[in-house]
């Protein structure tokens, strides 16, 4: 019974940790827009966590610059299981317009398993919500497997 309760709760209370790996801030402000009264993702139980230790979903924005690569990876590794990694915007998925730069290490999926990609540059808040809802489903699955 408790297992089911916990699995249900996992889907209902995903906390986000946002990592900016050299983003242009476009995606970042869209992520913040999701928390505003217009979209209010807190309806679904989402919350921005301040520390990776408390997060369930890691949202990475930015093209993963060489400077930030180690930091991003160590922050992601500090998130307790079950966790879900979401890349947001085109940059972490491919490098976008920075592709091929000496200082850019994108895509992130070369280094860690990415669960959900949210495309868009920057994605629309609705698209972000779509992606996050998908991520909660994945979280619940992972929780259920445990």
């Amino acid at each position: 019974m408790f297992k089911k309760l916990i699995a249900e709760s996992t889907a209902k209370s995903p906390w986000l940790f946002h990592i900016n790996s050299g983003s242009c801030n476009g995606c970042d402000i869209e992520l913040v827009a999701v928390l505003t009264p217009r979209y209010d993702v807190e309806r679904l139980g989402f919350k921005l966590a301040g520390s990776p230790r408390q997060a369930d979903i890691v949202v990475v924005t930015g093209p993963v610059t060489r400077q930030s690569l180690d930091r991003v990876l160590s922050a992601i590794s500090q998130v307790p299981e079950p966790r879900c990694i979401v890349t947001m915007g085109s940059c972490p998925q491919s490098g976008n317009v920075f592709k091929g730069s000496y200082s850019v290490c994108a895509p992130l999926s070369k280094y860690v398993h990415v669960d959900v990609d949210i495309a868009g540059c920057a994605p629309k808040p609705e698209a972000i919500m779509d992606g996050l809802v998908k991520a909660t489903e994945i979280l619940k699955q992972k929780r259920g497997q445990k």
Partner: protein
Amino acid sequence: MDFPFVREAVTKLFSKPSCAMYPFQPSEAAPNYRGRIVFHPETCINCNMCERVCAGGAITHTSVKNEDGDDVITRSFDLGSCTFCSTCADFCTRHSIELTQDYHMIGIEEGDLIVSGTFVKKAVKKPAPKPAAPAAAPAAAEKKADTPAVAPKADAPAAEAAPAAPAIEPRGDGKPTQDPSKCIYCTICARKCPGEALTVDRKEKIWKLDEDKCVACGTCADVCPKNAIVI
């Protein structure tokens, strides 16, 4: 201390929230929103203009020969690398690329964010057949230069012009030829050429085609104000 939001907080408490209840109620994107790319391979002429103008390097193509010796070309758009700037659509002479209002672009499996389309580019027969080419057009949707949309257009002016100056023959491989008698060296064709294959010098009255660069897209013929280009 000053609390400027007291009244607002109280009034808001008793008013309807301003949330868009998105996941439960669908929400339309604004008009002219540039969302998911839709590719119409049937109109694509493989000019690769889109690839060249793409800032994010999101557009790629692969080309495989089939048993007929035709090129099977697959063009794919990686939405995960796209900036949705719409430049490719703007540059596409055949309007094969379209950015829709669909913003639900979520990738979970590999390939969820890839939009692609395949078409066959007929291999050019060296002994070029006459304008009979258009006849083949209705047969296949996947055709290149001689698509139904283009062929009649290209033909019509040629047919009109034929009595006046029959000297200019179409080359038959889809690449343009100039009719010097009609050409006014306005350079529009050179400027519009996606492959920068044309060099036009107004003073010297030179019209030159770099055959390696030409992709036989027919833009030059379309834009020519004097119908001086024959394909």
